[in-house]
């Protein structure tokens, strides 16, 4: 029994298969059942949403419904089932699904042709969290001040990001490494290993210089996996020049030409961007592997000075965000009209144009209002979509309890009562099915606490004792 690595490393570590054969005898935590429990717990623990679902369905919906049905009858059972299932769906999933749907519509070319929602062609399928976007944008500002050429600005930005990543578990991780190496029985090997820890996995939790170099190579280099991914900017520039010729040939000019061209380029941009997102897996994998070998672990912070601007980010999604920012924002701002990252020295006016394209804003309400900056426009879209999603979810969530009230009332011919306090009043039960005068009067008396249904204290496990 050995630790199942999250990447298959058996090929490079043939020795691991030896250790699988011999389970140590002394520890209870090594037993078969223990491993099953531990692995199950790990699956639940590493996925926040799964954790909520398991706790909610397995721990709340099922036992609560069963108990309520047994103890207080079918009305309470039904109400509990509806309440708890809606609790899982609405509380945990609904806002996420609505958000995904919203951004899907926002990125859709068909919807754009009808509503013109996305004039800048921001592709939100390459997801960047708002806090990350702000942190990256601030780093871009610094890089633009420091760098002379576009390529240099890009490089400085990458340097700054790689310099400020720290492992979230720097202290405990380092402790566990040393404690594990203490277990090595061969004394000279143990000492040599202890001595080599700091060089390979710094206690500060930062990346080693070697790993930084490798990561930088992946993010910029010609021979890196990145090179296999489509260069969106070049493809767009080429497409734009071809499309201009084609549209001119059809006889368009002036306003109509620029309008048609803008629309075509936007569609192409969204299309290419989604293609890139689909092809990014090898780049992300290479980045993650390099980072893990360079001293990071599965969760990281991003520091600015000694404070964390981003905290507890998962490693791979973080690199996905870095990659999305480079492709969707920075490269788009830095490239020339041919879509190429040049080594030409930038003038102040050019830098101003780049800043405006990234940050410039006119924060008018409404999605269709013109915004020049990519970042403020993304914020605007995010605000709209997430606000609508959360608000809709709230409305749905709010209505569930009232729906339950209505359903119980309907089932009992307009009789208002709470099944938590027992069944409907017995005098009214005979008239259930049609709201008679008696039931209406009874109703009023019941809810004004004057008449009590005959429910006494009953032992717990006595099935439906109260009814």
């Amino acid at each position, binding site marked *: 029994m050995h630790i199942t690595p999250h990447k298959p490393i058996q090929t490079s570590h043939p020795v691991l298969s*030896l250790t699988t054969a011999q389970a140590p005898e002394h520890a209870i935590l090594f037993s078969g059942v223990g491993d099953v429990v*531990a692995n199950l717990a790990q699956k639940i623990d590493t996925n926040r949403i799964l954790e909520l679902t398991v706790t909610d369905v397995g721990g709340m919906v099922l036992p609560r419904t069963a108990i309520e049905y047994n103890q207080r009858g079918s009305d309470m059972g039904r109400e509990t089932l509806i309440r708890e299932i809606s609790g899982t769906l609405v509380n945990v999933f*609904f806002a996420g699904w609505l958000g995904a749907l919203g951004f899907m519509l926002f990125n859709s070319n068909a919807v754009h042709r009808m509503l013109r929602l996305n004039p800048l062609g921001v592709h939100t399928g390459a997801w960047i969290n708002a806090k990350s976007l702000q942190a990256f944008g601030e780093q871009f500002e610094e890089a633009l001040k420091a760098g002379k050429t576009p390529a240099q600005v890009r490089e400085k930005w990458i340097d700054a990001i790689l310099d400020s990543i720290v492992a979230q578990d720097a202290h405990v991780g380092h402790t566990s490494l040393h404690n594990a190496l203490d277990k090595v029985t061969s004394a000279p090997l143990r000492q040599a290993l202890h001595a080599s820890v700091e060089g390979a996995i710094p206690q500060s939790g930062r990346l080693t210089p070697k790993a930084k170099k490798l990561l930088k190579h992946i993010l910029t280099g010609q021979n890196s996996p990145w090179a296999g991914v489509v260069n969106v900017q070049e493809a767009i520039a080429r497409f734009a020049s071809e499309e201009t010729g084609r549209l001119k040939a059809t006889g368009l000019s002036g306003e109509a030409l620029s309008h048609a061209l803008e629309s075509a380029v936007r569609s192409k941009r969204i299309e290419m961007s989604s293609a890139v997102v689909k092809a990014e897996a090898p780049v992300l994998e290479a980045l993650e592997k390099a980072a*893990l070998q360079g001293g990071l672990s599965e969760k990281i912070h991003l520091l600015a000075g000694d*404070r964390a*601007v981003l905290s507890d980010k998962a490693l791979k999604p973080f690199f996905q965000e870095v990659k999305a920012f480079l492709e969707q924002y920075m490269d788009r701002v830095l490239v020339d009209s041919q879509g190429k990252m040049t080594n030409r020295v930038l003038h102040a006016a050019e830098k101003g144009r780049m800043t405006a394209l990234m940050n410039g804003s006119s924060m008018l309400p409404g999605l269709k209002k013109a915004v020049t900056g990519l970042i*403020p426009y993304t914020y605007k879209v995010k605000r709209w979509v997430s606000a609508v999603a959360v608000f809709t979810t709230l409305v749905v969530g*709010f209505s569930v309890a009232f729906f339950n009230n209505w359903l119980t009332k309907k089932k009992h011919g307009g009789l208002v009562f*709470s099944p938590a306090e027992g069944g409907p009043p017995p005098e009214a039960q005979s008239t259930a099915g049609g709201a008679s005068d008696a039931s209406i009067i009874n109703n009023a008396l019941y809810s004004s*606490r004057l008449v009590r249904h005959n429910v006494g204290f009953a032992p717990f496990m006595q099935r439906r004792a109260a009814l």
Partner: protein
Amino acid sequence: MNIGNTRPVMTKMLPKQTQFSGGLNQFVRTPQAGTFLKLFDYERLPHSAVNQIKLIYGLVIISRIRAALSRGSWNEAREHATRDIMGWTFWFYAMPAVQRMFVKALVGMPKEYREALLHHPDGAKPATGVIKKLGWHLKSLFNSEMPSALQIEARCEQALNLIDTQAKTQRWKQTAVDGAKKQVNEYFHKLKNYRNFASFTGLVGAIALLGFGVVLFNIYMTRKSMAASQKH
């Protein structure tokens, strides 16, 4: 560790920029994401953000209490309040604390595992002062650094890589290298199991408390209250 802006919000005070402005005003400050987005933006689609869930669940609790009151049942309202407020707190705050408590309190866990699972942000426990000590313990339940099972796996791989590098550069005996790998692997396996058992305890605790305990308690309380009101 402090989380938040590292720079003051200056954007609004700067003059409005045009697309072709140059010279002194060329740098527009990066626009701030704003409180709403910082709190409620999605971390990863199509999953709801945890803060969204907190808000939605919190307001749904209020709607449940309101609906119970609308049909005149104080007992039901009290049931919702007890069960759901407890559920909300447990989901979002108590479960990590229970996991840490498990690691702190598990009898027989050797020091070498305990110290690799929990690290207090302030370091060692203060020597004097009951209140100081209590504060230290509370902080360790909620704020201490605790690796996830995935992080432990990553560390294991790093340790194995270290041994590989040593084996390549220093020409150690193959038996020593194999033994070292086996011993390191065993340590991390056990560490990960302790970590996962902590998670499991949190989960079982949550289900026992929220799925069974509170529900039965509510039924008991309502019956008691009904019985008491009948005597009058």
